[in-house]
């Protein structure tokens, strides 16, 4: 799993704004960003600040309902994904995300939002290591990820991850 700092760096590159160096505070390793306009602390706070700085408010949500969904998933990232220790935990997370995406193209509404970006960078290394068998198991998550990586500005310098569009394994895989 990518470190919180790397995820923030990637998103700021996508947004085209500078974020400087990210340091960590305390035993919980809370990310801190020091900029000219002040210091921001915490993953969600920093991301929202960056989106506003890039004048891409719609990434944060256009109304209260959408904003709540963004908050919910960023919190999910900090509270659950970041604290995954064992493989079992990771699998549980992937399974949940897969279920959520079974009837959706993006996490929020019908467009790319901060959630998609945050989760894409956070999960990149995890998904890269998945076997084809697992990719098929997390079919909906794979479809979402594959759609995300098609954009050069999102994928940036990282490698394409290959997904199979045909079913490779029969039986209980999905």
């Amino acid at each position, binding site marked *: 799993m990518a470190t919180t700092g790397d995820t923030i760096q990637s998103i700021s590159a996508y947004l085209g704004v500078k974020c400087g160096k990210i340091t960590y505070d305390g035993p919980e390793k809370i990310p801190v960003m020091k900029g000219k306009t002040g210091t921001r602390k915490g993953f969600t706070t920093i991301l929202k600040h960056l989106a506003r700085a890039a004048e891409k408010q719609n990434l944060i949500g256009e109304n209260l309902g959408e904003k709540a969904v963004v908050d919910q998933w960023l919190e999910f990232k900090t509270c659950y994904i970041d604290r995954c220790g064992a493989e079992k935990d990771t699998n549980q997370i992937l399974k949940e995300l897969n279920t959520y995406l*079974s*009837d*959706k*193209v993006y996490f929020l*509404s*019908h467009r790319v939002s901060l959630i998609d970006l945050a989760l894409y960078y956070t999960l990149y290394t995890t998904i890269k290591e998945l076997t084809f068998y697992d990719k098929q198991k997390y*079919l909906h998550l794979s479809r979402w990820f*594959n*759609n995300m990586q*098609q954009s050069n500005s999102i994928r940036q310098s990282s490698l394409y991850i290959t997904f199979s569009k045909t079913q490779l394994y029969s039986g209980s895989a999905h």
Partner: protein
Amino acid sequence: MASGKLYTYPGNFRAFKALIAAEYSGAKVTVDTSFKFGETNKSSDFLAKFPLGKVPAFEASNGDCVFESNAIAYYLGNEQLLGKTQTDSARVQQWINFGDNEILPASCTWVFPCLGITQFNKQDTEKAKELIQKALTVLNNYLKTRTYLVGERITQADIAVACDLLLAYQYVLDPSFRGSFVNVNRWFTTLINQPQFKKVIGDFKLCEKMAAFDAKKYAELHGGDKKKKDDKGGKQQKKEQPKQQPKQAKKEEPAAEEEEPKKKDDKDPWAKIVKSDFDFDAFKRCYSNNDTIPVALPYFWEKFDKNTMSIWRCVYKYPEELKLTFMTSNLVGGMLQRLEKLRKFAFGSMCVLGENNDNTISGVWFWRGHDLAFELSPDWQIDFESYEWTKLDPDAESTKEVVKEHFAWEGDFKDMGGKTFNTGKVYK
């Protein structure tokens, strides 16, 4: 970049294909607001540019004229929409055709009766439902691992197929029917919520409750006001104009709604057809009591009046579904039974040709008038659409042969692929 003027009536899902493509490519398209359906497209000026007189039709600012929605969309599209490689372009084309052939006909058969545009036929509707189910299953499996139909971005394939599904999603695909097609639903809702789609279609509401055949609406549109039907140019045109017409008709005669069904009961469907001197009963007696070839046929050709009558040939459209010959024969029997009143001024001979598991139906009819008699009364319309009807020229030699074969129930039925006569039924 292409720019120009699009002719269409509002809410035309075919025009949407082109308009959405323009939204994506940035082509500058204006919809001609002065367009009046049935007037503008019938004007000689319009027909000179678009001989079919159908919409959508597109006139580019450089003078290019393009008709057919998919072609217009192609004209207005960009590389992303049309496919960047030859393979992608082929795939885009594949899905466009899939929409036109697998979805659209069935979807119209199913939805149009609900809007009162066409008459309801239970068999056809059930069949259409099956076809839609099949097409959606194919789409659903395909979209399981894909976000969009071709590549990972929206292409003309998505635009065209989504537009072909608009009517169905709006009127008949209720939550329980569409429930199992999760992937299609995801794909469809994502598309219709894209800003480029929304700009053209507006806010789209998915069907809550499956619409059913609306007899009242149908009567309102078709009953009594045959004149209006003619003005509109018959069936073909109506297909091109699914939504506007019900509204128009409603405005014009809201009071006629309740009286309509009563009137119909005591009206003789034949009343409007020219009288003919041909005595149907006499011919039927002659045919029943004498040998066909030496007596009845010469009698028929002698008395036949080509000014007031017409001869028709029908061939069953779905022979691949016919299994055992006796079942085919029952199918014909059922059809003839349902045609009361037509009897008065019509005669027909239906032949089942072939053998078990390889048979078809072919028939020859004649009746008063020069148009398809079944259209005179809704009571007669249950089966006739399952057949391909062609009017025969009474003076042609080939007609004499076909009539002879069908009335005498013998001959080699050459044009039916060598199938031999099995059983026959006469409508008299």
